[in-house]
């Protein structure tokens, strides 16, 4: 797996008596967009939280770019080249849109606290450069007009773009998107799909999403979770054709066969 960005092997996480993840194995390659789908409570967000270091796994391993990822903490991620968006927007309400985006570049900044205290050239020049790059990213996302606004007063779609801008500032090698399309209109979702596809050149993208339209149009590969276990892993077509997936998740779309199998555990 030379080009692999992330390899997850036999990952298990339990909360009390509940196994949130049960022997999950999956991978994301460079230039690949992998969608993680599954019903609510299937373990998608827990998988993200383990990758991000918010939750320690009980068993299993993570390998990032060929190196084991072990006992990392959330603030180590951007330095490693992993960026994540949060469900909802996860923006800092007291920072302007531009400042929120500039936050993404935080770990690359080198000016020390001394030069910041004394307002030295080193610190202020770096600030100007970061601000300029933040504006570029916002421009690319079509949100440059809102740079000086506080996010809470802006349309939801702009807030989502700001959150996306922040992760792009970090120039990640592995991008984790947690429900990027929630709350977006169809048009906005199309724009998002185009954007995500345009990103993937050098990045591995892992996408958790409920909107099947977006998942089906964007992802190269799908991993389906149910009750903490991987029940399918493959191309869009193979996953769509998988009866187990249909039962667990896409039951509505293949009404006849789902009815016969008679399980309704997809809530």
């Amino acid at each position: 797996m030379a080009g692999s960005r992330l390899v997850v092997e036999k990952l298990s996480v339990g909360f009390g008596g509940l196994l949130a993840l049960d022997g999950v194995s999956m991978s994301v390659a460079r230039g690949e967009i992998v969608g993680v789908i599954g019903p609510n409570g299937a373990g998608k967000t827990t998988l993200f939280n383990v990758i991000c270091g918010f939750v320690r796994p009980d068993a299993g391993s993570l390998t990032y770019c060929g190196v084991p990822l072990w006992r990392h903490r959330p603030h180590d991620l951007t330095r490693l080249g992993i960026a994540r968006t949060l469900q909802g927007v996860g923006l800092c309400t007291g920072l302007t849109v531009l400042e929120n985006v500039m936050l993404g570049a935080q770990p690359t900044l080198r000016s020390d606290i001394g030069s910041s205290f004394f307002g030295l050239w080193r610190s202020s020049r770096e600030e100007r450069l970061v601000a300029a790059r933040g504006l570029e990213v916002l421009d690319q996302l079509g949100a440059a007009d809102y740079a000086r606004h506080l996010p809470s007063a802006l349309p939801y779609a702009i807030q989502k773009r700001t959150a996306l801008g922040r992760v792009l500032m970090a120039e990640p090698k592995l991008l984790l998107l947690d429900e990027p399309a929630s709350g977006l209109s169809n048009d906005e979702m199309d724009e998002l799909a185009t954007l995500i596809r345009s990103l993937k050149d050098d990045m591995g993208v892992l996408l958790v999403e409920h909107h099947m339209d977006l998942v089906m149009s964007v992802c190269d590969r799908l991993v389906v979770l149910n009750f903490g276990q991987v029940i399918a892993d493959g191309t869009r077509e193979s996953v769509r054709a998988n009866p187990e997936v249909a039962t667990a998740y896409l039951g509505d779309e293949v009404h006849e066969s789902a009815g016969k199998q008679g399980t309704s555990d997809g809530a």
Partner: protein
Amino acid sequence: MLRHLLFATFGAGIMYLVTSNISLFDNYQVGQIASFVVVLAGLSLLTGVNGQISLGHGAFMAVGAYTTALLMTHTQWNFILELLSAVGAAGVAGLLIGIPATRLKGPYLAGMTLLFALALPPIADKWPNTFGGDQGLTMTTPNAPGTLSPQEWLAWIQIGGALIVLVLLANLLHSRYGRTLRAVRDDEIAASLAGINVARTKVLAFVISAGCAGLAGAFLGLSTGVVNTGAFPLTLSIQLLAAMVLGGTGSLIGMVWGGILLVYLPQWSTSLSGHFNLGSGVSAYLATIIFGAVLIVAMIAAPNGIQGGLRWAWRRLPGSGSGVGGSGSSAAPGAPTPVLTDE
């Protein structure tokens, strides 16, 4: 940055005119205001910008004051060095309090810092030989140069110190550290995902804030000429917090209002109680009562403090831009308008 320096120079010019045209006692009070501005600016950074509350800043001031006083008693160090030691010692105290504080929030953090404010003064009482007991330790200001009166000279040291602190903090708030501090205040999870070490940032805020308090403590000790355990009671810590809120949480320049209130409110309340012939039992607490009352009124009328109210009024002026000059940061949470042009 240049803008902050220009602003400070302007402030220094005004203060020069003020101090040379007022009485010696007024000079003493202006110096006290400047001292309070130093501690309030640090508190504003901690609470307003970083979102951590502290009821223990009076104790950090005591650490600074005793450090300088002990150095003055036992060594012949340079005066500036003695003041910087106050900053350093209080900063270390801030480190010790700040590390456990990263795990606490809101009322629990308030409780822990409150405990610190309560627990520190008895330590000085316990070793009267070292800390001077009730009499305390004397603090002396170096001789004034030329024909300057000692009061004016001390006021100048304090004003100069306050301006330097304001410029340094304003620079910091406009750097990447300012952004980091505010991000941690707003959303710790988002901040950590952006690569910010949340715990380290919170400790840093505590150290800087405590360092400012230490300098302010040394300054106030110089004003009274003596430092003893009675000089930094718990009510001081609470009044500091109230004055910070009244000045405008998160603002630096608003702390001037806070300092003015801290110095003049007790004085007004004393003359008030004398006017109405109130008993000594009442008059002793009148300042604190008035402080509380003013705080409640301000929370209803101007939740962003005096500086926030002024900023709001300034934006309402016809034909004015929305930015206010000076080193005030625009980080007050819940600022009335969403557009921020003040960089």
